[in-house]
């Protein structure tokens, strides 16, 4: 006979309400605080965390990073097109938007690095 109970887990400690279940086998990383279910089959108990928030957060960070990369590549392409257009005459002047484009690209690189840090943190706190 099996029993499924709502449970929580924090720092590797599974609880059903206020009661700890120290012998429960945690079927995930179990580092970050999570909600989930405790499966009991006779004297065996296993905790399954709801890892959807972790997955959602990771996907959102990845999408943000890809957006920044795509935006930066578009800026680079636009700038290179402008530079290429100027190379048909005697002028050596850079396109007027170059400085702003470089700032945009640098800002995006900073944002991508922040997303990378967030993903690294998430990796160390998986539920």
């Amino acid at each position, binding site marked *: *006979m*099996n029993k499924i109970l709502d449970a929580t887990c924090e720092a590797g400690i599974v609880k059903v309400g206020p*009661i700890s279940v*120290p012998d429960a086998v945690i079927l995930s990383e179990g580092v970050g605080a999570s909600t989930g279910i405790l499966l*009991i*089959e*006779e*004297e065996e108990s296993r905790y399954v965390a709801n890892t959807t928030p972790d997955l959602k957060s990771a996907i959102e960070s990845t999408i943000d990073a890809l957006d920044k990369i795509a935006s930066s590549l578009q800026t680079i392409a636009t700038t290179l097109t402008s530079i290429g257009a100027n190379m048909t005459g005697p002028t050596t002047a850079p396109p007027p938007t170059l400085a702003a484009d470089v700032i945009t690209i640098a800002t995006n690189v900073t944002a991508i690095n922040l997303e990378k840090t967030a993903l690294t943190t998430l990796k160390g706190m998986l539920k």
Partner: protein
Amino acid sequence: MKIFCRHGYFVFEETHAGQISRFMSLFGLEIESTGDHFTFSSLLDAPDYSLAGGTFFGAPTTEVFAGHPWEIMRVNDLVYNFSLDAVVPIQTVTQVAKVRSAANYFLSDGMLLPGSVMEDGSRVKDYAAFFYFDEMQFKYSELFYE
């Protein structure tokens, strides 16, 4: 009427219609149907799991377990004390079991209290008994104690 004591959880079975109500009247006990069997009213809707540090009908539990009520009572060393109308730790039962051996069964003057102490210090855990209304006698075909 048949009486099964499964580690302090009781199952009653009629061998003739109306025996449950007659038995209840005789002994002043409350017995009701649950699922596929009759049991004491106080054992209705028994939890199907226990947690260490939790309770089972108010009695403290020490083990994580999911199963039938009698299995939960077994792993947590609990029995139903029908004299007190309470589930209690088996160690708290102090009543002495007075059992006589007959031809191919055992006899007692009343229904044996689960957890009651035998002469050798062991405790009654499980039994299968018949109650004979004409003789007002409990006869035990199986009796397990440890």
